[in-house]
């Protein structure tokens, strides 16, 4: 191994400087003992937390943290006139933002070029996974329907952004409450405030109580790095920048394959590697479902 002969140089240099100058050698030395610089085993994901209802001014919101990567998703419902060809369907507009606060690479003038790519990936995955039945967003057939603006903000970018963003989107949808509305005389939908719910009502409210969205197959994802014959689950930003082959597997709760996304990368993925990734994702799926249900249950409590 080339690193050994350079040892006289690295022994007297500090670990921190060696990590900055020879990142690949630094990581490969760890992989030999199948651990990673932050102490995790190869297949273990970072600890994940979900906090629902982080934004009071939004109809549904969630803050998720996977290790240091932090995402804030918020859904605001607005009324739109549905299109002619799908009169009784609402619509979802998904947008992903990387503000300058999330990483040193992003400058206010120049947005990160990964942001539009992730936005497209997220909207493809969410629409094709069918987690939201657009018919539930309809209000008055042909005249009014809900337009759900889902905005996901990356507050701290430390690797596997897609997993954290998808998790925050799914959590925000499960926290979404559709407000009670009624049609007033000018044909505009207006909120019916809870207190005078029982009071005089020119129009009986379109939907009775503040209801939740019925969510069936929730998609969960795991990104892995293929390097030589190692598979590293849930990489940090440093690992992603050194070993560039990423495979993102998205499974839904009925363990159907929603998407398998491998955008090139020096290491070709063989079938065995694909199967290992899918197995890791299945195991990760159970973990995430447990965390999400925990968050939902203690939200119902308070």
């Amino acid at each position, binding site marked *: 191994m080339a690193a050994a002969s350079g040892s006289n140089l690295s022994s007297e240099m500090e670990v921190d400087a060696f990590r900055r100058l020879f990142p690949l050698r630094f990581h490969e030395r760890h992989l030999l003992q199948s651990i990673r610089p932050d102490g995790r085993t190869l297949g273990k994901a970072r600890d994940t937390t979900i906090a629902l209802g*982080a*934004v*009071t*001014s*939004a109809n549904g*919101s969630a803050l998720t943290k996977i290790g*240091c990567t*932090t995402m*804030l998703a*918020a859904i*605001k*419902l*607005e*009324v*739109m*006139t549905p*299109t002619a060809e799908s009169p009784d369907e609402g*619509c*979802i*507009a*998904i*947008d992903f*933002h990387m*503000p*300058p*606060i*999330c*990483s*040193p690479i992003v400058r*206010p003038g120049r947005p990160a070029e990964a942001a539009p790519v992730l936005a497209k990936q997220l*909207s*493809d995955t969410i*629409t*094709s996974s069918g987690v939201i039945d*657009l018919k539930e967003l309809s209000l008055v057939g042909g005249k009014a329907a809900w*337009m759900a*603006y889902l*905005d996901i*903000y990356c*507050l*701290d*970018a*430390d690797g596997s952004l897609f997993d954290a963003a998808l998790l925050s989107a799914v959590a925000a949808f499960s926290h979404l409450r559709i*407000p009670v*509305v009624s049609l*007033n005389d000018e044909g*505009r*939908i*207006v*909120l*019916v*405030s809870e207190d005078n719910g029982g009071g005089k009502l020119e129009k009986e409210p379109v939907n009775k109580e503040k209801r939740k969205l019925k969510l069936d197959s929730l998609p969960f994802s795991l990104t892995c790095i293929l390097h030589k014959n190692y598979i590293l689950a849930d990489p940090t*930003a440093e690992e992603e920048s050194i070993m560039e082959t990423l495979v993102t597997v998205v499974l839904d709760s009925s363990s159907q394959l929603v998407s398998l996304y491998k955008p090139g990368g020096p290491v070709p993925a063989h079938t065995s590697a694909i199967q290992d990734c899918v197995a890791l994702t299945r195991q990760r799926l159970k973990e995430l479902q447990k965390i999400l249900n925990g968050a939902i249950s203690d939200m119902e409590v308070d």
Partner: protein
Amino acid sequence: MAGKRGATPATYSPSLTTAKGKKKPPIFTDDANWVRSDGRHFHQCRPAFLRIATVNSASGSAYAEFGNTKVIVSVFGPRESKKAMMYSDVGRLNCNVSYTTFATPSRGQGSDNKDFSSMLHKALEGAIILESFPKTTVDVFALVLESGGSDLPVIISCASLALADAGIMLYDLVAAVSVSCLGKNLVIDPISEEEVYQEGSFMISCMPSRNEVTQLTVTGEWSTPKISEAMDLCLDACSKLGNIMRSCLKEPLSAPEE
């Protein structure tokens, strides 16, 4: 079934059923014992929740929550200035404030306070020892997650915490408070409803322990005595806020290194 690719259709947000043509909500009558909508009396600020080191990939960061106003600030640097910049033997400060789309009740309002970035720059400029990092730049980026009223003072205080967390040499922390004038009485730390109906506003950012004012903006009509009354009110609110900020900075250090 892909999401709408073309221009998203025009949408409007269903606002609360407000009766038409109501002049000014009666709660702003001029009698003295009137209590504000969120129960605070005139000279009481909202509870401040502050935390530092919230963004790992930034050199320094801070999160501030004053009632419904939630702000995250991260500081990068001192790092290389942009190529276009000329040589300067004094460090440079670069500030940028942005709003999330869901920060304000209606979607588009975030963009109309473009001048916050230059106001933040002027408020912080006086407190940073620029000579300690020649030729390089310190970037201060703020993101307002939720706009609940008097956003700029919260941004300034949170930014000075983030600078301290990043280890940038400061003359002093910067605490900022704003006061609205409704009828005769001065209302400190106004929420957005109060801001809409204010006749005048008085925003001050100062260095609490050196007792120096770095930024001051006044709008509306004020008589001189009222200005000095507002000034004293704000200065002692700033010193109280300064102590809260200092305890927030000391707290992770005094606790055993986890």
